[in-house]
């Protein structure tokens, strides 16, 4: 009889084309959009930061500095606005000035601008503590709504200055040595100056204009030799796809389960529930039957999304089938029970929609469905553990990202199945309102 309840819901789903599309097509469509946006960045998720550069100095040193900025992989340094697609041979836009660069940042065309002041090329690098008020200072104009860009740009500016202007850096070091050693002799200074001249030689034409490849992780040039190896995800084709498959998957499962669970309210309103409860079906069997149906639909939804992810976005499903199966069933159970519980608590469809939208969006935001939890503050990460989303995403990430075996997700499965039991118990308790008067 429990299966009869599930089959009844299946009849309804088959007959309701809109519900069918919402249940199976919409999640895949959303996933495709998100995966398409984020998988296009390849292995690196760090974007190139657009940066307007204004060279008020115009010296060899500043020009070398600007060239190095344009070659820096993490920056999209521009000395002039990007020209719109020209219909015919229109004149290129004029280079940025301090005023036009500031206007561009204010208008939101760029997140950040750099003004290289007069005299920068003469003394760009100074060693020693404190700020030398006499030396020219680079000015960075930023939009405070983007907290990442200024920090990244500051770090890159330091690196670019040191690596692109070795002569200036060496001279700065020499000045410090001169001060602290009691003074270099004129011969020593002359010898050092000869050596530094080779460092100041301009790069061959065209070389500095060629940007470095985006993957600067291995053997990146710098003062200290660094080699980065991905111990997690080294061989992964598409890291962000797994995250979005899990994150969006659990969110859509929650929406779908709540929507379908609302059939209980409609049955109560139409008198059908009364009729059902006068037959041999008890309220417990009815709820379990609905849970079975919702879980089955949830499993199919997740399978569809992940299979789609494998075919079109390089998600590696087959090597992780066992873990995927375990996490899928646990997630579907928990989401279905949540939907059933909300439907039992609410008295009307409108109430259910309002409460479901609020609670699911909140859970999805805090739980990491939209934005990885490890990028949130510690407090928010802890809060996230109160959501189904966090546990489901953690479990899927363990399987797909960290390649852990299926049994390793037992904490996640325990929590999800535990939530299922709790939600069903609450639903059963609340559903008493529909039983005997």
């Amino acid at each position: 009889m429990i299966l009869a309840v599930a089959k009844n819901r299946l009849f309804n789903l088959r007959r309701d084309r809109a519900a069918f599309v919402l249940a199976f097509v919409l999640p895949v469509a959303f996933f495709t959009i998100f995966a398409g946006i984020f998988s296009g960045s390849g292995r690196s998720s760090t974007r190139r930061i657009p940066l307007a550069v204004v060279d008020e100095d115009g010296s060899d040193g500043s020009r070398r500095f600007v060239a190095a900025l344009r070659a820096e992989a993490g920056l999209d340094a521009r000395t002039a606005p990007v020209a719109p697609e020209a219909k015919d041979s229109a004149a290129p836009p004029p280079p940025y000035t301090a005023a036009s660069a500031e206007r561009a940042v204010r208008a939101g065309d760029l997140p950040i601008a750099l003004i290289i002041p007069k005299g920068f090329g003469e003394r760009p690098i100074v060693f020693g503590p404190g700020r030398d008020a006499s030396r020219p200072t680079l000015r960075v104009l930023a939009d405070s709504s983007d907290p990442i860009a200024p920090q990244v740009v500051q770090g890159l500016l330091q690196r670019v200055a040191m690596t692109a202007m070795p002569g200036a850096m060496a001279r700065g070091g020499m000045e410090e040595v001169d001060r602290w050693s009691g003074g270099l002799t004129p011969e020593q200074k002359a010898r050092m100056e000869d050596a530094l001249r080779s460092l100041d030689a301009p790069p061959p034409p065209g070389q500095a204009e060629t940007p470095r490849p985006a993957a600067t992780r291995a053997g990146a040039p710098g003062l200290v030799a660094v080699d980065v190896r991905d111990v997690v995800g080294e061989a992964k084709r598409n890291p962000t796809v797994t995250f979005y498959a899990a994150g969006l998957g659990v969110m859509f499962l929650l929406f779908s389960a709540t929507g379908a669970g609302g059939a209980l309210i409609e049955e109560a309103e139409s008198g059908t529930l009364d009729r059902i409860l006068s037959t041999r079906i008890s309220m417990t069997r009815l709820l379990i039957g609905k849970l079975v149906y919702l879980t089955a639909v949830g499993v199919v939804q997740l399978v569809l999304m992940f299979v789609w992810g494998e075919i079109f976005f390089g998600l590696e499903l087959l090597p992780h089938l066992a873990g995927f199966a375990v996490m899928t069933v646990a997630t579907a159970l928990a989401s279905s029970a949540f939907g059933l519980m909300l439907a039992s608590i609410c008295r009307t469809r409108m109430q259910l929609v309002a409460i479901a939208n609020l609670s699911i969006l909140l859970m999805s935001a805090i739980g990491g469905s939209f934005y990885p939890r490890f990028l949130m503050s510690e407090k928010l990460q802890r809060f996230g553990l109160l959501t189904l989303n966090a546990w489901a995403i953690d479990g899927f990430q363990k399987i797909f990202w960290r390649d852990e075996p299926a049994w390793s997700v037992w904490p996640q499965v325990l929590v999800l199945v535990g939530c299922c039991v709790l939600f069903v118990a609450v639903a059963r308790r609340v559903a008493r309102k529909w039983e005997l008067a």
Partner: protein
Amino acid sequence: MPTSALPLEIRELSKSFGSRPALDGVQLSLSPGEIVGLLGPNGAGKTTLVRSVAGRVRPDGGTLRIFGMEPERDEARSARGWVPQEIALYPLLSPTENLWTFGRYQGMSKAALERGIRKSLEWIGLADRADEKTDRLSGGMKRRLNIAAGTIHEPRLLLLDEPTVGVDPQSRERIYAMIQELRASGVSLLYTTHYMEEAERLCDRIAIIDHGRIIASGTKDELVRQTVGGRQTLTVEAESALPSALAAELSRRGGQVDGASARLPVQAAGDEIRGVLETFHAANVPVRNLTLQSPSLEQVFLQLTGRELRE
């Protein structure tokens, strides 16, 4: 299931919702193959009584037995069918799928269900629309399907709650025929309705309920004899308002005068009609119209409850 037990036996049934008593010592029983009509004004307790028999309301006191069993037992549920007043069907599902659902919920086996669905669809005349969505059917068709969903499992006791509400006369006749067929096959029916003519036409016995109690029960003739008696009502209409002397005379005879017409109870119609006409003639008041009406269930109802049935 005890074979000798009555299909329905209710003794001293009581139920209150908060401080409001909905049932106050109801006594009622049904014999096999009998149709009992349940009449009562709104708020009289009809719905609570029907829902108690349907197993949806737990009484506070008294006993209710279906073929000798408590209504919550599975065997009682199988023996009982309920056709609620609302069209309690799944609108998106076809008649076949609706019947399948409610048949399975009654524990019918696959084979019995297949037979039952075919038979039911033929019975209600929807065999050619078996796979259409229910919400596309007409009101009359939905009502018939509503009945079929309550009888798919071949219950021996059927509760019908106003099964012809909002239905056209043709469909109503069809439903009456279905009810007669059920009775002929031995099913006992408890039938609630607001339509007096339905109760008079279909029911073997009528129970009138008011303020949670059965205040009268019996065949129509028995109820008439118990309340309004064998008296008929004579209505006389004149051309103009009756003179005061004539009105006083008619009132003395137990009549009610209203402008140009007067209504009088008569026992022996032949003699009394002549007497009344002579009275009018003596008062020099011409009679425009004369009507003799036999006692109706409506009069019985009015007499017993003091209210119209549809209040």
